[in-house]
């Protein structure tokens, strides 16, 4: 079996250099590659373009790379939880492209499936459609306008999984799955950090979410904080 294991986050991100485009998994702070983000802060690569559904919070997640001013451009669907992000955006330091969440997911999926474009109705008639090619299709008895959207072309994808093996196979847990599987499929080089790196044969092939062919580097992360953005509970 091909071995995809690298020693740690530092080794995994060693060739992520200035001006690269990264796909970063996670929804809010759920399922984010904590170890790789910390390693990137340490490495100091600058002028990064990051594609991620959100931009973290001020002091966690991608917010850490914003604080250290390593991000030139963010492509996200929702950025409401980060004051430093807002400051950098309004002052013009940070370039921001907001795109519909389903478009974001599907542009990753398209890359992983080798399809250069998709057509989606999301954003038709809005400022998201400005400058984009549209076509009208009749499908399921409904005639609608669709926007052409391009598959992402990213130098690296950085994802977080629950379990993985040395062959790069990944299993995600609960809603920490979110964008991670399709981003894993979409990177020219994909780095996966996992909570638990298990022996070959321990993962049931029927249960694998991302086959190892999509994962070029894998390592077991450490000291996961797994911060919760909004703890909402009910009394016993």
């Amino acid at each position, binding site marked *: 079996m091909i071995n995809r294991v690298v020693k740690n986050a530092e080794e995994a991100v060693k060739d992520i250099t200035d001006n690269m485009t990264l796909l970063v998994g996670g929804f809010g702070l759920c399922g984010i590659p904590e170890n790789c983000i910390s390693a990137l802060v340490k490495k100091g690569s600058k002028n990064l373009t990051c594609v991620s559904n959100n931009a973290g919070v001020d002091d966690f997640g991608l917010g850490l790379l914003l604080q250290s001013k390593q991000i030139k451009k963010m492509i996200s669907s929702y950025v409401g939880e980060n004051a430093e992000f807002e400051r950098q955006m309004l002052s013009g330091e940070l370039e921001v492209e907001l795109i*519909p969440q389903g478009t974001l997911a599907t542009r990753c999926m398209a890359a992983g499936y080798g399809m250069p474009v998709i057509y989606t109705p999301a954003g*038709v008639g*809005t400022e998201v459609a400005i400058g984009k090619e549209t076509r009208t299709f009749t499908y399921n008895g409904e005639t609608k306008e669709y926007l052409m959207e391009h598959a992402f072309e990213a130098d690296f994808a950085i994802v977080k999984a629950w379990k993985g093996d040395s062959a790069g196979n990944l299993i995600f847990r609960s809603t920490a799955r979110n964008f991670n*599987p399709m981003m894993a499929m979409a990177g020219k080089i994909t780095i996966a950090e996992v909570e638990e790196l298990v022996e070959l044969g321990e993962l049931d092939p029927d249960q694998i979410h991302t086959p190892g062919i999509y994962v070029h580097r894998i390592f077991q992360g450490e000291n996961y904080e797994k911060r919760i953005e909004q703890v909402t509970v009910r009394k016993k």
Partner: protein
Amino acid sequence: MLDKNGIAKRIAKEVKDGMYVNLGIGIPTLVANFIPDGVNVVLQSENGILGMGPFPIEGEEDADLINAGKQTVTLLKGSSVFDSAMSFGMIRSQKVNLTILGAMEVSENGDIANWKIPGKMVKGMGGAMDLVASAKNIIVAMQHVNKAGESKLLPNCDLPLTGIRCVKKIVTELAVLDILPEGGFRLLERAPGVSVEQIKNATLGKLIIEGEIPEMIID
């Protein structure tokens, strides 16, 4: 006049047995609290849940299990989790039957604006553009007027649009209205104690009033 819970209660009556429903952040989330026993619905959360349950019991929250509002939630028996591409796949392919979301403005032809106030607030559209572009049945939960007292039911939206010609029904603190295919807000029900005159004064877009307008029944 209805409070937020009142709006949610009235919308809950639109939720029918067997529906898969996506609830947006804010008042729409409250709708889940008022779905009657015996009406079996499955709540979809676009970050990847079908069969979302209530908030966890104190101490049992799981960082890996949140809803689209980033709140900790639980899974009901029979639920499933999946990735974001599949989540929007079931939205785009119209398997999700009903979308309930908030709005800053709605126009008389069904356009909706709810993601951006230029120069003031830019949080992003999240999944709203995907939802409104594909959902067959969209109900908007909103206040009839903004904090400055200006109508949010307009001839045309002033704010950047989220989607065009998509809203089917609106429930506000004053009224229930639907949007006619040829355009116009048709008044269906008045909130308790609210007169047609009050609704007229609070609606800037074309308001269509046909016959007696009944007071809504909530409980």
